């Protein structure tokens, strides 16, 4: 993520924009290929995600998930670690949320349950990331391998628990009982006067997500721990020279990362589904990687990227509803193209721009 010799606005604004335009251009070609109008598709996509209250509500609901998983990946990035286990960490995080809600929902109001649910989600997610982190730090087992394996372990573990241990007795579904009022976060539509998000489940978690953004920003750029994380990520030898303990740094970073991923479960379990159910994560953990890449591992960028992916999710659903020829799979292709251009092909347009700006600056310098 080097900034090269480009002005900041180009690096942080223009390049992501060009990447996005390129992604939509190629997506448009795909739409033409199946005989539909790309202009109409874009109209439907934007209208479906931003055109009316409920659409916006769904966009923000999905964005909430992406903010949490994007932050998780970003924090690990800063230590030079690639945590792709957000999927499993969020899934296990659901256990912490469910535990708090099942124990407290009959006794106390939601705002008393919430801190316990947040703590539970973060603790479970952190615990799930601790093992890969510890293995990386002490044994050199690569976190990319171990975190992805832990996604599978999490999936199997949750099925076992939901079917045999915590599932509601007598239910055909592998899920817990539905929480009552004390285990439900309020919908934003109900607490913000004059706003109508319709049936969209966007809830109080969005505020938690934004608080998490501020927290991550403070952690990474304003605390000693953040300084150590960034030192280790940028130059491990210099970090060791500076007396920074690599084992401690790796383990703590992975746990913070896992904790953030785990907190995604608040939005789904306590905010929307009101019960712990099977496979509620459905890919949000993986998309978090793209969100973090596109957002340059910075909270502001992550919020913007999360909203973009929220739009793709919501607008995509509308699109496949309005234009049946564009199936759900097509939407996945478009999302994939955005990830490809924003993440993997990040450096495709950069050299050209660097040259362009270098040649623009040279005559200016000569004239001055």
């Amino acid at each position, binding site marked *: 993520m080097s900034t090269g010799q480009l002005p900041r606005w180009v690096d942080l604004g223009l390049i992501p924009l060009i990447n996005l335009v390129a992604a939509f251009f190629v997506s448009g070609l795909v739409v033409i290929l199946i005989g539909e109008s790309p202009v109409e598709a874009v109209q439907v996509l934007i209208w479906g995600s931003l055109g009316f209250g409920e659409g916006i509500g769904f966009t923000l609901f999905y964005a909430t998930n992406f903010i949490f998983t994007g932050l998780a990946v970003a924090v690990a990035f800063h230590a030079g670690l690639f945590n792709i286990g957000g999927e499993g960490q969020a899934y296990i995080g659901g256990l912490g949320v469910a535990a708090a809600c099942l124990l407290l929902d009959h006794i106390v109001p939601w705002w008393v349950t919430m801190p316990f649910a947040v703590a539970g989600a973060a603790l479970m997610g952190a615990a799930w990331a601790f093992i890969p982190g510890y293995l990386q730090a002490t044994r050199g087992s690569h976190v990319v391998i171990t975190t992805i394996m832990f996604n599978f372990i999490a999936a199997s573990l949750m099925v076992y628990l939901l079917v045999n241990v915590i599932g509601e007795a007598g239910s055909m579904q592998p899920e817990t009982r539905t929480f009552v009022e004390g285990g439900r976060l309020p919908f934003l539509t109900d607490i913000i006067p004059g706003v109508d998000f319709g049936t969209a489940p966007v809830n109080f978690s969005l505020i938690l997500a934004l608080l998490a953004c501020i927290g991550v920003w403070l952690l990474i750029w304003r605390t*000693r721990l953040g300084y150590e994380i960034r030192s280790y990520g*940028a*130059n491990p030898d*210099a970090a*060791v*020279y500076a*007396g920074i303990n690599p084992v401690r740094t790796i383990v703590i970073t992975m746990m913070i990362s896992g904790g953030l991923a785990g907190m995604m479960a608040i939005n789904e379990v306590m905010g929307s589904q009101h019960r712990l159910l099977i496979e509620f994560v459905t890919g949000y953990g993986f998309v978090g990687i793209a969100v973090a890449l596109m957002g340059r591992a910075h909270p502001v960028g992550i919020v913007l990227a999360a909203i973009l992916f929220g739009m793709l999710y919501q607008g995509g659903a509308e699109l496949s509803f309005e234009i049946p020829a564009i199936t759900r799979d097509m939407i996945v292709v478009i999302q994939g193209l955005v990830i490809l251009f924003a993440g993997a092909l990040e450096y495709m347009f950069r050299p050209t721009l660097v040259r362009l700006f270098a040649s623009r600056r040279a005559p200016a310098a000569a004239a001055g």
Partner: protein
Amino acid sequence: MNKALHTNELGTSAVPAIELRKINKRFGPVHANKDIDLVVAKGSIHGIIGENGAGKSTLMSILYGFYEADEGDILVNGSPVRISDSKTAIALGIGMVHQHFMLVDNFSVLENVILGAEDSGFLASGISRARTELKRLEDEYELRVDPDALIQDLPVGLQQRVEILKALYRGADVLILDEPTGVLTPAEADHLFKILNVLKDQGKTVLLITHKLREIMAITDKVSVMRRGEMVATRQTAETNMSELAELMVGRSVLLNVEKQPAKPRDTVLAVEGLTVTDTRGVETVKNVSLEVKAGEIVGIAGVSGNGQTELLETIAGIRSATSGTLHIAGETIDLGTRTPNPAEMRQKSLGHVPEDRHRMGLVTRFAEYENAILGYHNDPQYSNGLFLDIAGIKAAAMAEIEKYDIRPPNPILKTANFSGGNQQKIVLAREIERDPTVLLVGQPTRGVDIGAIEFIHKRLIEMRDAGKGILLVSVELDEIRALADRVLVMFDGRIVGERAPDADERELGLLMAGVEGAGA
């Protein structure tokens, strides 16, 4: 001394195998090769010697087509050529044996030899032809190795033999060996030299890159010395000696003039006893070293780089673990064989450390200047505001250092990578010196630093000494050691081989640095 030197017809009028004319190569601001001229006679063993970073490997990479020279001509057998990649080099009969072998571990010797030189899509025909050819090469050059053995089962010496076979199989007439003995045991090295002599007798030309003087004396016909990207001398090996070569390698071009009063050493502030360090490969890099540094003196460690100086400094600084040894510092005795390395703890004992390589260790170049100004001291209470860093305070402190050390540009939020080498080094020095440590370890304080900054840095170090601090200085620049140090220890092959006054005879120091035992005694 020249017992292994073979007599052959040198200086005949035959066309040289390789001729380089005015080769220049720059990597950004680094001028790695400056106007290099080199003539390598056919059927000779030609040594190229120089310290790490002198530009030897760059030059050979140009010859082998890994890099293209910015300027200059290459002549092979008298005709000018353009070597744009290693394929061209091989076609011209130039082969290379790399320092780190380019072999596929789980392939057999035969498969490795034909790798990239398979004749057709099917291996079988090529393999049988290769087997015959390999047999012939083995007989002709006495390069015995089982063609069906897997590389991973072979000792390093034999793996190197496979590399040589690979080059010969491709028809190499000129063989470049890059630091070939670095990984070999002495017996294996002797065997390699025998092979090289056989190759020479069969008419091959050998270019041997090394920083070991003994090898040059033992095997080469001619030797060229490189220093800081320049070819400083070429000698007939029979007409030179180790001390001259050592002097040429280290150089004494700039007479450094540092004004200083005689030292007034007081109590011992740092003492090392019986320090032995083993690296991850199991090689002893520091062997039973003892030394002490008193308050108010600079102890210089002279030596050709790679003789254990790096490991010595890093172990004292708490970065590396040691096999055995004790350290006395700040009134405490630390058993180095059992401690867990912890640089933060050493800093608390008032030990400052300017590492040898500022890019690898001394700085996080991606950070802003002010962030590097607290590297290693970020947990000091003065920089904290509860859980948070006191950014405004850190910037103010960094600005004060920038002014005091004249670091340019004077901008603490500028990314460290954007400062010049000399200014980067000043950032490190300012950070370490301004903590006012009792003991300061300094490695290569002026490597890659311009003249003006060198003078400034030397003055600071003398000031520190005069303020009653103890300084342990490691430098490969003999002039720097002589200008700054009050006592000079010479390190060779992991040992302290002698102590001399800084005004000792330069030839004598050169011989000690070259590991010639009993020099001047």
